[in-house]
């Protein structure tokens, strides 16, 4: 079911169709929170809280407003804001990128660094997640929304309130950092 059909149903009968919204979106809410915050416990709480808040908000909206919602971006906004609040209260311990720069793996913003693709096995998956967690917020959050979730740049602009052009360069820079970090940490390469 696409989101316009879902919002139509929510507008007609919120309590009758909210479970469908939960089933459809819970995994992506959780994934966004997990990759932004970097730990499963906080991600669970944020995903739960976000969906409960979504229900409370929808209960206060008139049907027309619910129909006009861009659900994917709207939910992502709630999740990202809750993640930010949480980080503000309990700052994440982050690994600075400086060591990567020192070892000569400074990311190039033009994206010319290889590899373009990686084969990711179980352990590498965790390492990739850990590398992603080291990116500064302003790169990590757009990368998560665009590439772990799959929002369009228009949706990203809605969630983060930044111009699309800015977000494109932040995503590109974030990916470049990730590539460099992947090389530095010898993730198995698979050159496209």
């Amino acid at each position, binding site marked *: 079911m696409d989101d316009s059909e879902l919002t139509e149903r929510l507008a007609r009968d919120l309590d009758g169709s909210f479970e469908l919204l939960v*089933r459809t979106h819970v995994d*992506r809410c959780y994934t966004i929170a997990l990759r932004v915050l970097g730990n499963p416990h906080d991600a669970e709480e944020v995903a739960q809280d976000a969906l409960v808040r979504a229900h409370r908000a929808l209960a206060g909206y008139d049907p027309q407003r619910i129909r006009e919602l861009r659900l994917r971006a709207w939910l992502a906004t709630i999740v990202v804001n809750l993640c930010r609040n949480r980080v503000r209260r309990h700052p994440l311990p982050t690994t600075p990128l400086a060591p990567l720069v020192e070892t000569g793996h400074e990311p190039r913003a033009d994206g010319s660094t290889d590899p373009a693709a990686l*084969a*990711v096995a179980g352990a590498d*998956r965790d390492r990739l997640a850990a590398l992603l967690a080291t990116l500064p917020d302003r790169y990590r959050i757009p990368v998560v929304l*665009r*590439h*772990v979730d799959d929002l369009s740049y228009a949706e990203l602009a809605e969630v983060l309130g930044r111009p699309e052009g800015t977000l494109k360069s932040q995503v*590109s820079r974030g990916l470049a950092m990730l590539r460099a970090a992947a090389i530095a940490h010898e993730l198995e390469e698979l050159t496209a």
Partner: protein
Amino acid sequence: MNPTISLTDDTPGGLAPALFEPAPVHVAEHVLVETGLADRMAPIDSPLGTLWVAWNGRGVSEVEQAADGAEAARRHEARTGRRTTVATALPPSLAATIGRRLAGETRVRIPLDLRGRTEFEVAVWTKALEIPRGEVRPYGWIAAEIGRPKAVRAVGTALGHNPVPLIVPCHRVVRTDGTIGQYSLGGPRNKRTILAAEGLDPDGLEDAARRGERLSGSTTTKIVCWPTCRHARRVQDRYRVSFRSLREAGAKGYRPCKICRPTAVDAAA
């Protein structure tokens, strides 16, 4: 085969094969309970033995007797249409509030989920909440207090439909003739058990009512009360006097207690 991920910005979702992670099942479950679209159920101890309490994010939605949690959940689902899962225990804060209420504290607020109930039912149950532990009031008193003095029978029906017995103390509402009356949670015998556990003597109450002692006054204060009102019960025997009706008390110069307000059922007394 390991998933291959793309580290380019060509198509969205490139990292998803590696970094997408389904939420643990309890996340969705928690959201549905929290929003009142599904319920949980857990056991509590009571003077009637184990009872099963159902709740969701809006409040407590049912208290029932059942052989086990599965049966309680099945019946609750049938009544409410909401999926109900059995938990090992209530959330600690809710367990504590219910415990304090059952122990007689009247100021604890227990949130209740009374969706789908009529305004009249909710008015009856809210009024019953005012009756302190260790005291009883007649059905007619509730009817009068909620401004529906003639709806005595409907009050009885509403109390019979009380979804949260013990929490809403419908066991403290007795028949206008002073007999203990019916009880929804497993029958009249349970009503007597609970009243006895709250320090009352159900047989003694019925005997007194049969002797025509419907109201109790004090010769020193010239105030008349329901017999179980805490102000009536602290009157010493030598100053205590009984009345058949408020009219009789009024004729002898007694005024109704402002706490238990026996005015209300003059007609029914």
